[in-house]
């Protein structure tokens, strides 16, 4: 039994660390949903695009880490703005499901581009920001990179909370709730839309670039791709009722931990990949039982 408790502790640690990535993705998803009612299926691909761009800058062109990082972020944000321009804006009067299909197309385009440009690169590694490595008292391996991820999450969460109290943040909320009224008082709904997608893409890019270095990756085999990060991110967003930013953070961490349960040896020895199974049934359970979300705090918006 002792082994199981220890295993659980290690799993939970990994869960929290991994969950911080999901939380970042979830924040982007919730932001887009609150601003335009769209489920953004391309959210994870903002991350992969940023990652590949940073990789190219760092490994192929030899730029310094900070510059490469910034470049990756820039490319991710550009992708977000492009998505807004080419897909979201033309379809603004279409049904939400059509928009969803549109973002799915964007995701596929990103995947296609990644395959195109990087298919011949067999194994890709990216150096971590810090190669340090710790072991917690209960035997869980923790990389400094992962800890940095958690730190970034905390900072981002606080910044977002502050941002939404600022005029721009309020403008975003106003534009989503009452587009016509917002236009009348001088808020450009168009600008707000671009701002939203830019921020969401930045969040996605952050998530991608921070996780990339943790494992080796290829265009075909990402630890961050659609199934790996998009789904858990959406799960966390669902837990947050698609509304609450703090809820997205809490949800991300929870999803990370729940996913780890699937990799406990009692299960994964029988069947590999039970993480996906656990997530599927968890998602079903949450949607059927508590469709309004679990971590929905006192958010003063509709």
């Amino acid at each position, binding site marked *: 039994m002792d082994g199981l408790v220890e295993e659980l502790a290690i799993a939970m640690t990994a869960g929290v660390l991994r969950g911080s990535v999901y939380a970042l993705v979830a924040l982007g998803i919730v932001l887009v949903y609150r601003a335009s009612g769209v489920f953004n299926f391309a959210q994870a691909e903002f991350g992969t695009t940023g990652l590949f761009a940073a990789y190219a800058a760092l490994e192929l062109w030899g730029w310094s880490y900070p510059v490469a990082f910034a470049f990756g972020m820039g490319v991710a944000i550009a992708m977000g703005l492009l998505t807004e321009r080419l897909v979201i804006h033309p*379809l603004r009067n279409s049904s939400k499901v059509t928009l969803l299909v549109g973002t799915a197309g964007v995701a596929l385009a990103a*995947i296609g*581009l990644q395959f*195109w440009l990087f298919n011949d690169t067999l194994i890709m590694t990216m150096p971590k920001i810090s190669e340090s490595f710790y072991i917690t008292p209960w035997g869980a391996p923790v990389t400094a990179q992962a800890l940095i991820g958690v730190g970034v999450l905390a900072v981002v969460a606080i910044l977002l909370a502050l941002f939404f109290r600022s005029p721009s943040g309020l403008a975003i909320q106003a534009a989503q709730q009452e587009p016509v009224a917002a236009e009348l008082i001088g808020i450009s709904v168009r600008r707000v839309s671009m701002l939203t997608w830019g921020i969401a893409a930045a969040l996605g890019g952050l998530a991608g670039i921070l996780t990339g270095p943790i494992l080796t990756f290829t265009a075909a085999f990402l630890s961050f791709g*659609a*199934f790996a990060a998009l789904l858990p991110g959406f799960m966390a967003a669902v837990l947050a009722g698609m509304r609450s930013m703090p809820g997205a953070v809490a949800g991300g961490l929870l999803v990370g931990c729940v996913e780890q349960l699937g990799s406990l040896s009692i299960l994964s020895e029988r069947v590999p990949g039970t993480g*996906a199974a656990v997530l*599927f049934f968890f*998602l079903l359970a949450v949607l059927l039982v508590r469709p309004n979300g679990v971590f929905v705090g006192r958010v003063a918006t509709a």
Partner: protein
Amino acid sequence: MTSTLDDSRTRILEPVAPPVQAPEPADGLASESSGSDQAWRPSRAGVWARGFVWGLLAWFVLAVPANILSPFELGVADVSAATEAVIFGIVGLSLNILLGYAGQISFGHQAFVGIGAFTSAYVVVDLQLSFWFALLIASAVGALQAGLLGAVSLRLSGLYFALVTLSYGAFTEQTVFGITELTGGEGGKSAPRPTGFDSEISYYLLCLGFLALVVFIDWRLTRSKAGRALAALRENPRVASSYGINVKAYILLAFALSGMIAGLAGALLAHHEEVIVGSKFGFQLALLFVLMTVVGGLRSRSGVVIGAAFFALLGSGKLLEMLDKPLSAVGFSLTEFIEGTVGLPQEFVPLVIGPILLLLTITLYPGGIGQQIAPVREWLLGRRFDPHAGKVEEVTVNDVRA
């Protein structure tokens, strides 16, 4: 109010309200559909012309792959690509029932196809039963799991259900297909051809036969009360139920039918490739299936089949090869251009072209390929040539609860 018509016509009831004027056609053209049901008949020459084109199509689809009366020397690989195109066509029709007729989004269709594939392989190899029986079982399994998902969809709005289908796809790919006893792990599972259908051409014709069957079922679906029920409920479930339609039952029917056909397609795919691996059915395939159906044109049978075939041929590189043949006369090779100059390996071309076509479809040409070929299609079916046929205003994947 008495009838002003000739009393020699027997009437059950006399009209009780004054007649109403027909509206002006919106585009100013006298379109075929307005007015009475008097059938317009094509001229003699028209019949011959249509017959000729039908013959040409039949020759292209049947004789050319068999290398009968054909100047092209098609090899085994070519016919194999054609088979794949046909199977994709079946998948497209299956997804069209869900997406186009019932208005339900599904990013998990590759799971239905994949499970159908492995089920069939399992039945033939492990249970030692006949191929035909395997097809039946695979279809039934497809219908069953789709029906279960359908039951879930009744409780959720469209966007959340899309998420569930995505998760189902991940669950299937990573968990279910990870069970090596069922799926043979990395090496894949073998799925031998049925006796008598070993050759590529015979298997191609078999799949073509099934495509025809599915088209028939789809045709009857749209012309029967089930099709009308789906058309009503996807636009306005309240009105549909007040017409006496059991909305929930018909949504489940759509799911079951869609899943059944997807399972069938999966089984055909398995025995076509003779070895199937689980990793084939991933997120890209999910997106590709939705894409090809939307680009093909929702609710357009011919559009969906052509769209699916297009993407299949594109992915196997055959389309580029086909285009290269005439282009080689001018000394230009499309394949070389794309692989060499542009640097895009040909198996990824659908991933790049697909989203571009999708964007064009949902913004500019909502009816997709189906809309573009509608004038020709209507002409072939014996109606007057109308360049404005098949006009669609917006891509409507209607989910009234979204």
